[in-house]
Structure formats: structure tokens, C-alpha cells
């Protein structure tokens, strides 16, 4: 995976506002995992953002905001994870729980982005002429072939029910179409 450069602060501020799509999120995380300077900049964005949004559930822990932030900063510095407000979570009351869950998810994302297996088709498979049917788009990764996507969905549901000890089938990708046309099968 070749490193990407971030020419401006915009992706980081978009990340802080939870405005990135999934694909963009992964790209930014990949870069941040390798760049201490960006990581430090990200921490500052997060703190500024939280203070500006006046998060009562986070700030209520102590009366003076500065006191809380003073305690929060070293804790964030010790943590190897990035905390990202999920897009819907910004308006939810139980934000703290989601913050922790998101931090855990993102910790995994950072680890996987730097050490994970190669993308949609291995170099070996590409050499054998296996063309991936997945494509990157401005809306994230989509399955180019809608019919195949529907079959993948059907496979996941049955595999989920019958064999795997974990509900992985539910989450296995290729149902990350952001197509507002709706769930698979409706397009027929």
C-alpha cells in the first residue's frame, strides 16, 4: 500500500466532523498511522471540536473545562487509538459509549490498515487473470455487479445461520452500497 499525502488539513477536519465516507476514512487512517505529526494534529482537532460542541456528557466530569481538558490530553497521548465520532453518533445522547466503541473499532482499523492483507485481489490472483468485480467510487467501495452483490448477500445470510459461530455473515462486506435505491433484490 503506497502512502498517500494529505496536502491540507481539510481531511482531518472532515474526519473530526464525522463527514468522511468509509473509504475516505480508511485512507486517512492509513496515513495517520504512519505520521506522528498528523496524529498530533488530529488530537488537537478532536479536543478543539469537543470543546466547541460543548459536550456536556464529556465535560460534566469536572466543573472547569480547562481542568477536564488538562486531564484528557495526557490520556489521549498515552492511547495509541484515534477517537472518531461516528456520523450518526454526533447527535446521539449516549455519545460516550459510542466514543469508546468507536475508539476500539478505530484501533483495529489502524492496526489492520498497516498490517492487513492485500486488497481486493492478491497480486497472484491478478497475475492469473482474476479481475476483481469490486470498484472504488466516490461513495466508497461497491460491487460493480449488482446481481453478484445480491448473491453474496444471500450466501452470507445462509452461511451465517447455518455454520459460523459468529454473526460474521451479517457484516461481510459488499453490502456497503450507499445506493439509496435500497436493499438487494429490489432493483429487479
Amino acid at each position: 500500500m503506497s502512502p498517500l499525502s494529505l496536502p491540507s488539513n481539510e481531511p482531518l477536519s472532515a474526519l473530526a466532523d464525522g463527514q468522511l465516507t468509509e473509504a475516505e476514512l480508511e485512507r486517512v487512517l492509513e496515513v495517520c498511522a504512519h505520521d506522528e505529526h498528523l496524529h498530533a494534529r488530529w488530537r488537537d482537532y478532536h479536543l478543539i471540536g469537543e470543546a466547541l460542541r460543548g459536550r456536556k456528557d464529556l465535560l460534566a466530569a469536572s466543573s472547569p473545562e480547562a481542568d477536564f481538558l488538562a486531564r484528557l490530553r495526557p490520556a489521549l497521548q498515552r492511547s495509541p487509538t484515534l477517537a472518531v465520532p461516528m456520523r450518526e453518533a454526533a447527535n446521539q445522547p449516549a455519545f460516550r459509549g459510542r466514543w469508546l466503541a468507536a475508539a476500539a473499532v478505530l484501533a483495529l482499523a489502524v492496526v489492520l490498515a498497516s498490517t492487513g492483507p492485500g486488497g481486493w485481489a492478491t497480486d497472484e490472483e491478478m497475475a492469473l487473470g482474476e479481475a476483481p468485480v469490486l470498484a472504488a467510487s466516490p461513495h466508497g467501495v461497491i460491487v460493480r455487479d449488482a446481481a453478484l452483490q445480491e448473491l453474496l448477500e444471500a450466501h452470507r445470510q445462509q452461511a451465517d445461520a447455518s455454520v459460523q459461530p459468529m454473526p460474521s455473515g451479517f457484516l461481510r462486506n459488499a453490502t456497503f452500497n450507499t445506493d439509496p435505491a435500497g436493499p438487494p433484490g429490489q432493483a429487479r
Partner: protein
Amino acid sequence: MRMDVTSKVVRAGVLAWLALSCAWAQSPAADATTDLQALLARMHEAGRSRAYVGTFVVSSGTHLSSARIWHACEGPTQVERVESLTGAPRSVFRHNDRVLTVWPGTGQVRMERRESLGLFPDRLRTADARLAEHYTLQASGQIDRVAGAATELVQLQPRDAMRFGYRIWLERQSGLVLKLQTLDRRGQVLEQAAFSELELDAPLKVEPLLRMMARLEAEHAPKPAPARTTLAAEGWSLRQEVPGFKALGCQRRTAASGAAAGLHCVFSDGLASVSVFLEAAPGALASETTAAMGATHTLRTQVRQHAATFVGEVPAATLKRFAQALERRPSNP
């Protein structure tokens, strides 16, 4: 202090088997089978008999998805609710074998039954006697923390190249699977599923979840259950079994419009599953196409007047074996 993980797994497994009223013969030579079957029994029983709430993450290739899961149980009643946290919003409610899927973004609702393809414990009784022929179990003795809980790590190595290997982290006390990695022959992680956050034995009741599900169901007409069938009844057969993979069942698919949409058959070796989709499509596919994402591989090819699609968390070569073995009865088009 090192634990004798294997004997602990076997003891827990025996209790689980008795609870299931399963009779099975013991012999010295069956030790390997016993351990593996006991492990699976323990894993699945924990998933059924313990209430929990957690956040669950699946990474497949370069993609990450996560969801929140609630699981409640009372006696034989199992209720589950899964809410996607990434991608398009989606909720799934499961009450035993009835599954309701809701897409809040579009207001679409789908209700299905899954009994046709065999659920636990029937599946365990039939398929897994052969599991030890295709996988070996290695208890690592390693204790790791996953989602704040102590877990024991076991490894399932495939005996052949037809399937992938697995690393499984089980919660020490209950046997609940907290993390699962699918590995290829080189030991590379193709896919990982793990709880990032978990509250085991959460005070969840079945009733509120059932009410939520019933309310959604009342608002929408459920789809009729798919018709069960067999490969033979539809004019198909496998001229040679793909080692380890048994047919779990077939169903006739229908499109949203209600029109017939071909056949869906599921095969499994007890851990990995392969779906075979067959649809009448004269001359549709000029050549074979394949794709891979994480542990999931697909292969599409033409068999007589039908488009055949194979999907599974197995190596590409295994799907090719299925494609080569599939044949159409000569009297059928």
C-alpha cells in the same frame, strides 16, 4: 500456570453434549474427533445460552464493518438484534429461525425463515463427525484478552488445500467466541471477526426485543418461506463430492417481484460454507470470472443453459472443484 486446555474443552464439551441429549460412541481412536466436536458444541452452546450485548467488527480485505449486537435467551427461545454501525443502516431481528431485516433508510422490510437449511443442533449431529478428517485442533495454551475478557486461543489447521484455517479465541468461562480469524495456507489473515466491546450475561430480556420485532412485522407483509428442494429434484448432481463438503439443503429463490430466480444450494464442511446459485440463462456467460474479497471467493461460469455462481469462504481452487463436479441431467435443458 499452564492450563490443560484440551481436557477442559473436552469436559465442557461433554456437558454440552449431554444437555443436547446427543448419544455418541467413544473409542480411543476417536479422541481427535471428540475434541473437535466438543469444541464446536461448546462454542455454539455458549452462543445460544448466554445473554450478551456487544460491538462486533469484521475486517475483510481492506474493508472494515461493525455492528452492535444484542442476544437474549430464555429456555429454547433465542432472540437477537443486530444494528449496522457502518455503511447503509440495517437492522436484523432473529427469533429462533425467523429473521426480519429492516433498512431504515429506505423503509424496506424482509422476513425470512431459515429452517430450510438446517440450524444447530441438527447440523452438528450430521456434518461434524467428519470434521476431524479435514481439520486438526491445536490448543495453544495461550490466554489473550479480547474485549476485556480472558480468552483461550485454539487453532484449527486444514488437512488439505480445500479449506482455510482458523484461529479462535473463546471466552474462558463460557466458551463464547470473541474473536475468529480466517487464515490462508501461508498463515495470512484473510478475515477477522471480533468483539471490540462485550457485556457477557447482560440483563437482557427476550420480551422487549420480541415486541420490537413484532411491531415491525405487523407493519409489513412477510415474504413467503422459500420452497425447499434438492439438487437432484432440480435436475442437477455433483459427479464427485468435493472433499468434506456435504449438501445442507437447497431452496428455490424468488425475486422481489415474486418471479422464480433460480436455485440456491449450500454446502458445508462443518466450518466453511459454499453457496451454489444456478439460474437459467442461455449463453449468458462467455467465460469464467472470479473475484476475491478477504476470505470470500466467487466464481461464475456457464453450465449448459445455466449461469452458475459459486460463493464461499474457501480457496478459489475449491470453487473450481465444485464447478467441475457440477453436471446437468442430460434430459434437462
